[in-house]
């Protein structure tokens, strides 16, 4: 009897994650493209951890879901916002992130951006539902 509760809960979880990921992605681009002024070491470390944890989580969730054979029609925070991702691309990205942000190549940056965009689309659908747009 309360679609609002569930939709807002999903929206909030996705939006918070999206804000953090957007920021980390911007930091990654500043490092990879050597945009001045450079982010400081703390920012770089935080962005690396954010992106690495997210990719590992998504990758592992995608595996679990494939094994369980359960595919949700929309992302769900209870399942840690798993979006469908290509396991090889994710692994390549994880390997590079483990070596630090400067190791990311254009392909991996594009991949991260595409995953973040997918999350953004999920969040937008929920937002439209809540805001009656």
């Amino acid at each position, binding site marked *: *009897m*309360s*679609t*609002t*509760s*569930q*939709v*807002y*809960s999903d*929206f*909030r979880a996705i*939006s*918070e994650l*999206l*804000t953090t990921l*957007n*920021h980390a*992605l*911007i930091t990654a*681009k*500043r490092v990879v*493209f050597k*945009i*001045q*002024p450079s982010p400081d070491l703390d920012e770089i470390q935080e962005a690396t951890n954010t992106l690495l944890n997210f990719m590992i989580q998504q990758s592992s969730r995608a595996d679990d879901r494939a094994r*369980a*054979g*359960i*595919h*949700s*029609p*929309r992302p*769900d925070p*209870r*399942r840690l916002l798993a979006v469908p991702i290509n396991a090889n691309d994710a692994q390549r990205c994880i390997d590079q992130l483990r070596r630090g942000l400067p190791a990311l190549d254009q392909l991996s940056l594009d991949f991260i951006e595409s995953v*973040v*965009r997918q999350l*953004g689309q999920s*969040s*937008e659908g929920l*937002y439209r539902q*809540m*805001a*009656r747009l």
Partner: protein
Amino acid sequence: MKDLIDASLILLLQRIACVIELLEDVHANSRIQHKCQAVREALDNFARNAQQARGLLAASPSLVADIARQYNAIAQQVYLIEQLVVGPLSRFGDDDERLSRLCERVCNEIGVNDIPVVVAAASQYFAALPPYGLIVTPPVESRLLLNLPDLYHELGHHIDGRGERLVGPRFEAALRDYLGKTEDEITRLSRPVDLHQFRDLIGNWFDWALEVAADAFATLLVGPAYAWANFHLMLRVPSIFAYSYTHPADAARMDFILRLLASDARFRWDSEALETRWKGYREFPHPDAPTLYELLHPAELFSSVLDDVREALDRLRIEPDPLRPGTVPAILNEGWHRLLNDPDDYRAWETATISELVLAKE
């Protein structure tokens, strides 16, 4: 483009400041003071993120597209919190005060310390916003009695959302077992079922489980009045067999609530009365049940959620006793009986009872 994104970030920061002002105006009300803190923290966080985005835009104008995406994410959160939380709180009035007092009484009766604020400002039906300790109801609920069993359903959401999980391992194990067993059966017997579609839709249970848990929570705590209220609600639902991503079908929920009531001998009269009417109502013409209706609503998944809810009630030391004289559930049950048995005199009784309910000290 950079100038427009920067201007939008400035406007967003101004908006956040205005929302904070609005919040501070209502801060004087002691009941909602505590709830305002969580909202304020969220707003401060949005402001920090927006300020940070401005800094990044100034330093790295070539990343304007990324910063536009960041603006989008922050702005959505600000506008929604303004619309759903700060707006209703800023207009907290007498109706909200009455509902919040009633909710406080309900929480005191069952021993819940984290008491939500209730505001009569929902644009749809009852809803809970656990991150902010808020429950919203339609505008006139403080003046009526018999939809209030739904407050217990939202209280279930509130408790779960504040960290005391109602759904747990019994449901998860049951879902795994059911999935394996059903897929095996579909394959072995070559049943004409689209396996991919079944797998997609059964995933809805990750959301449905909480709705079923809130139903179980409310039925256990309120007893038959929750079933009557649910039945009454269903009379204005266009299709009782329709399900969505967030909610199982109303008919399946009603079946579950009635099974739960029937298992308690104290509710025999209501249980039989409800069953008879429910059977009759199901025989009315209804839109057809959608694809896979039966396969998606197995009794065993409902039961597993119920087991988790019972365990959660034990953990929280909540002892349901819907008929204990003088309690809100007992009054709600009496209300439904009076309406059904003596409809002409019901309204006078309801008006007097509501006054007593919200004025009486426990």
